[in-house]
């Protein structure tokens, strides 16, 4: 019994030991597994943490920056976002990655919306304020013009010209910003000659004295396109003058081409490098709307304005060639649809036909009087001579006694302008000076005989004599009294 006891204990212990060993081994395996999984999970967690930090510190700023800096290089926003992807490739395709992408999308949408709203608000605010400024500038221009009319002193004129110049530039700036914000150029002009369009543009830049206009083409720009063309050319001229030395000239050439007309602007300035030229050509094409909140600082909106105008009115502007003087050559192409050939004002249409209908005997200096009233002059001179020979017109001295041409002139002078004002007939100095005195005696002899004149002179002499006698009498009376 006592021998059996230790054996039993031994077996029990052995069994227990075995079990413990098995358990220990198993436990160890489980522990290792758990530890491994734990490490894996911790790693995953760290990866996600890193990923979130990466999202916040790199990806979202990249998106922001891409959207914000996209004004210069269009499409930068689209390129920048895919460039910065997930930090840890293991997370690709997981739900977490999908959520992160969703966050990114939401963020991008919000940014875009905020930008659009900011742009719209900025545009609206700028537009209304610039329209007000523009209206004031126009008002002031009218006032300045009236002052220029009123004052005839060179000193006053000099000051007024300076004010006028400043006002014109100021108006252009306001107009350019308003156009960029989607407004219309704002002034309705009559159809104007191409030369006047260029000179109108010259009026609105600072260095207007440096602009030289060459080439005379007999082409006018249609009324609706005048103001936009003036504004576009003004911006180009301003760029040209601003980016070249003050002692150089800005040369403008006007050319009639098959499909329209070209305004070629050459400067002798610094020119543009490849990147600037690319950017300029994108802006000048006017393909995309310009975001006013993304203009550089200081804002450079010249090309953007030109592009907007060109796209809206259908003319073309390029600035990607070098000028022969080393600077930039900008070419404004106006298609035929924007051009007209009206160089005459529309009002004189009624006067034109009879001028054209009777061209047979028009003397070159004064075509109209002679052609207009050949019959009138004949009848009138006849009646005039009749009344004069009757001697009844002693009280009216001068007018009809000249030859037929001036009589016709008088008749022509009777007609009026389209505005209802009487037309003044032109006095030709050489003729009026030499011809009438030579003709005078014959006219007089025909109208009044020497006897009649003698009778009248006699009456005049008698009257004078009696008047003198009366005065002499009065004097005598005075003397005797005194």
């Amino acid at each position, binding site marked *: 019994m006592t021998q059996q006891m230790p054996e039993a204990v031994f077996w029990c212990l052995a069994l227990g030991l075995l079990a413990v060993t098995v358990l220990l081994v198993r436990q160890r395996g489980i522990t290792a597994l758990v530890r491994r999984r734990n490490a894996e999970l911790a790693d995953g967690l760290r990866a996600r943490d890193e990923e979130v930090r990466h999202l916040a510190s790199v990806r979202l700023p990249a998106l922001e920056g891409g959207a914000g800096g996209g004004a210069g290089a269009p499409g930068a926003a689209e390129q920048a976002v895919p460039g910065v992807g997930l930090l840890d490739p293991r997370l690709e395709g997981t739900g977490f990655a999908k959520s992160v992408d969703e966050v990114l999308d939401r963020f991008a949408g919000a940014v875009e919306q905020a930008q659009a709203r900011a742009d719209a608000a900025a545009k609206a605010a700028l537009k209304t304020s610039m329209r007000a400024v523009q209206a004031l500038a126009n008002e002031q221009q009218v006032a300045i013009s009236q002052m220029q009319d009123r004052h*005839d002193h060179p000193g006053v004129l000099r000051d007024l010209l300076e004010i006028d110049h400043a006002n014109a530039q100021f108006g252009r700036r306001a107009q350019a910003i308003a156009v960029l914000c989607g407004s219309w150029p704002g002034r309705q002009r009559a159809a104007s000659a191409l030369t006047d369009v260029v000179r109108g543009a010259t009026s609105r830049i600072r260095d207007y004295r440096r602009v030289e206009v060459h080439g005379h083409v007999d082409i006018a720009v249609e009324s609706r396109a005048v103001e936009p063309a003036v504004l576009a050319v003004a911006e180009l001229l301003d760029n040209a003058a601003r980016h070249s030395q003050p002692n150089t000239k800005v040369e403008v050439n006007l050319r009639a081409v098959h499909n329209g007309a070209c305004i070629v602007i050459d400067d002798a300035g610094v020119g543009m490098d490849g990147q600037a030229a690319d950017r300029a050509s994108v802006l000048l094409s006017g393909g995309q709307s310009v975001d006013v909140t993304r203009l550089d600082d200081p804002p450079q909106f010249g090309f953007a304005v030109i592009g907007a105008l060109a796209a809206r009115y259908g003319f073309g502007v390029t600035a990607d060639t070098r000028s022969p003087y080393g600077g930039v050559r900008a070419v404004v192409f106006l298609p035929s649809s924007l051009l007209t050939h009206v160089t005459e004002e529309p009002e*004189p249409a009624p006067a034109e036909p009879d001028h054209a209908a009777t061209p047979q005997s028009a003397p070159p200096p004064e075509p109209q009087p002679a052609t207009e009233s050949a019959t009138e002059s004949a009848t009138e001179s006849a009646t005039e001579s009749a009344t004069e020979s009757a001697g009844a017109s002693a009280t009216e001295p001068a007018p009809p006694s000249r030859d037929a041409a001036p009589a016709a002139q008088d008749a022509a002078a009777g007609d009026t*302008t389209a505005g209802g004002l009487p037309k003044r007939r*032109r006095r030709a100095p050489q003729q009026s000076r030499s011809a009438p005195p030579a003709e005078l005696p014959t006219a007089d002899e025909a109208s009044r005989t020497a006897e009649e004149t*003698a009778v009248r002179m006699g009456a005049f002499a008698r009257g004078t004599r009696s008047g003198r006698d009366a005065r002499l009498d009065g004097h005598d009376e005075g003397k005797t009294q005194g």
Partner: protein
Amino acid sequence: MTPGSRRRRPDRGLVRPYVVTEGRACPTRNTLDLVTLLIAADDLPLTGLNPEKRRLMELCRPGALSVAEVAGHLSLPVSVVKVLIADLMDSGHIVTRAAIPSAQPSDARILQEVLDGLRSLL
């Protein structure tokens, strides 16, 4: 109306006066007033003149016009037109003369009558 003034009237606000005079306000001579008559020289070419000067010459070609009338036709301020005219006088395109008193022709007539009357009295 003269052929020159029948031309299209330029839009007043488009080309500003300082561009027309190239920034100058003082005419090179001060002999001009509103009624000074301008007579264009026929033989000089118009090349090299700006459009306003060219128009001014066209206006004056058919005969004489006063400064005020030219300013009206060009729709420019008189003082600006004076600058242009002074330039044209310097280049010999235009000669000026004081206005003709309007009573002169009738004076000659009256004198002729007086002469006739005296002759027949004596």
